[in-house]
């Protein structure tokens, strides 16, 4: 899709809706004495009193039963190029009908979508878009996939799970853009219905996760390993933030961990940071820093290392790891030649892993 076509896509009007239709019992929690509950959706395992909510702000204990407040409660809906997610090995040039609810289970200081991720559902404009209606909406806009994105899909797990079944029945892919802060059981269930998952690995440092993300690194690494074990197509984005997660040792550690635990073929996107939310005091990432990260990851043997948020950079393209020819050409969100045929390089027949659709 060219830029003119992309800019001409309609935005979708949202309207406020009554509350009750968004509320359904949560799938993953334990009941505790005195009407308390323990959430088992994410590693945080919030213990929530009656009438209180978990850290995500979108799940509430009502009399000892835990509810999601965001089933079908869509706070953002857009038609995006799949490259914007970014997925570089999934249906190049396709459109993704992208939805999000309010809420997130971490609180990253660099969040670009904090106005929906860091608010409660009642604090943001939303519309009722049940799973049954989602495929038709996606198809109306010629989308090949439904993307669960923008905020944190883990916190709207029930909606994503139901919607991905409806999408699959309609012949659409389901793709997830997540921080990967999820317990193993809900992840395994999700893998039954989801075609691809992109994980924002925020850093390769426990300190960063504690101080900047308000979360933990290890459960994310565990989830990544599980995703590969479950056969989910996985890509990784690493937002490079000046002074906070841009050291050579961190890049090296990250690349080695990926190679050892996930394999050389997992795409890694080093993307450029722009000052947002609570990190407005830092400058955008210098492009040479991203190139340094890529060089380190390349040297460690990763096959598909990209640079993101730098439109026109050669490292946006996909290069065959064997014959070194360009097999997918990209400029920003615009796709040029695609020389992947049936999952292989058109020039040397080297397998190029991904979800190619042809």
């Amino acid at each position: 899709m060219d830029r003119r076509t992309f800019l001409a896509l309609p935005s979708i009007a949202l309207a406020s809706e009554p509350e009750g239709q968004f509320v359904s019992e949560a799938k993953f929690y334990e009941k505790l004495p005195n009407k308390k509950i323990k959430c088992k959706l994410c590693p945080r395992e919030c213990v929530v009193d009656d009438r209180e909510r978990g850290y995500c702000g979108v799940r509430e204990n009502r009399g000892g039963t835990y509810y999601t407040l965001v089933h079908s409660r869509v706070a953002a809906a857009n038609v995006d190029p799949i490259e914007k997610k970014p997925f570089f090995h999934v249906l190049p040039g396709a459109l993704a009908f992208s939805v999000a609810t309010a809420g997130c289970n971490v609180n990253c200081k660099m969040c670009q979508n904090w106005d929906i991720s860091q608010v409660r559902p009642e604090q943001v404009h939303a519309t009722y878009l049940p799973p049954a209606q989602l495929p038709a909406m996606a198809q109306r806009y010629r989308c090949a996939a439904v993307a669960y994105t923008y905020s944190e899909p883990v916190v709207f797990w029930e909606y994503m799970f139901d919607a991905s079944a409806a999408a699959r029945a309609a012949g659409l892919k389901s793709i997830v853009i997540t921080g990967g802060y999820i317990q193993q059981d809900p992840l395994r269930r999700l893998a039954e219905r989801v075609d691809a998952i992109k994980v924002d690995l925020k850093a390769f440092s426990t300190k960063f996760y504690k101080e900047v993300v308000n979360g933990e690194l290890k459960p994310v690494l565990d989830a990544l390993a599980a995703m590969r074990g479950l056969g989910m197509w996985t890509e990784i984005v690493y937002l490079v933030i000046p002074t906070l997660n841009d050291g050579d040792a961190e890049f090296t550690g990250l690349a080695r961990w990926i190679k050892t635990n996930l394999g050389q073929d997992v795409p890694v996107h080093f993307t450029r940071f722009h000052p947002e939310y609570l990190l407005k005091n830092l400058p955008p990432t210098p492009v040479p820093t991203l190139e340094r990260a890529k060089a380190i990851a390349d040297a460690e043997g990763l096959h598909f290392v990209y640079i993101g948020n730098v439109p026109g950079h050669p490292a946006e393209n996909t290069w065959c790891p064997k014959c070194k020819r360009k097999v997918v050409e990209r400029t920003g969100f615009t796709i040029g030649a695609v020389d992947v045929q049936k999952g292989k390089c058109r020039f040397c027949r080297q397998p190029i892993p991904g979800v190619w659709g042809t």
Partner: protein
Amino acid sequence: MAALSRRRVLQAWLGSAPGLYGGPPNSTVAIARDPQVRSSQARLATLLDRAVQAVYGSDSAEAAWKRVARPGEVVGLKVNCLAGRGASTSVALVEAVCERLQQAGIAAKDIVIWDRLNVDLESAGFRPSSRSGRIRTLGNDELGYGGDLAVYGSVGSLMAKTLTHLCDCVINLPVLKDHGIVGVSMALKNLFGAVHNPNKYHLNVGDPYVADVFMLPPIRQKVRLHICDALTAQYEGGPSYMPQWSWPANAVLASLDPVALDYTGWQILEQKRAEKGMPPLKAVKREPGYIATAAGAGHGIGTCDPKRITRLEV
């Protein structure tokens, strides 16, 4: 209104004067008790007067109330209603505060009772109303939150417009109670109700989040007085109401210093826990370290040094 001994009030007030002797300021926490307080609204009002008069060191309760706010100012009463009836700020106490404010010259239309949600207010027995010319009772869901992030330390929040746009000053009316995550919930914690994202601030037993939220400019600038409802207090199982762990303390605590008030209230709860054979909060990993953080460098909200807290039983 009942009068206190002038000498006791003067002693307490001198002790509270910030920087009077060159060192860190002392703080007064007044604790007014009356076992018969539930017998009439008049007794409750009298109890309240004793606490407020002691805090301001005034000659009379009337004079003390006139120091809280000036006629023409809009006074917010930040109640705590999440737990519904039983462990929320009592309607009777708030009615007594409203009565005294009006006697001090504050017009009814300039009094705003507020908390996070209308449904919370209703569950505690308040009747949300925004009718002009009368006392208003508003959840933050009425006016919503501003669009600009207020930032301090670990927190970044949107502020309730009730606080930023409507109120000139605030009387903070928390409840003396236990909190299952952050240890205790009193004056400092009650201001979580002024931000859009309190669910983000319960990590690490609330430290430093509780102190950081209190530093957000609209809160720090507008909250003038803290009156803690200890008519019924709760030493375990909070913030929800758990009658098996509540007791009729029949008291009101008041202070200009939320840190001193929280420290004092925390000690009361610890004493009750010990009486009931329960472990101290530290032993159950719920020691409210945010109180010391609020007193420390970088915050300086008040004092939690018992040597600098004048605990005045009135």
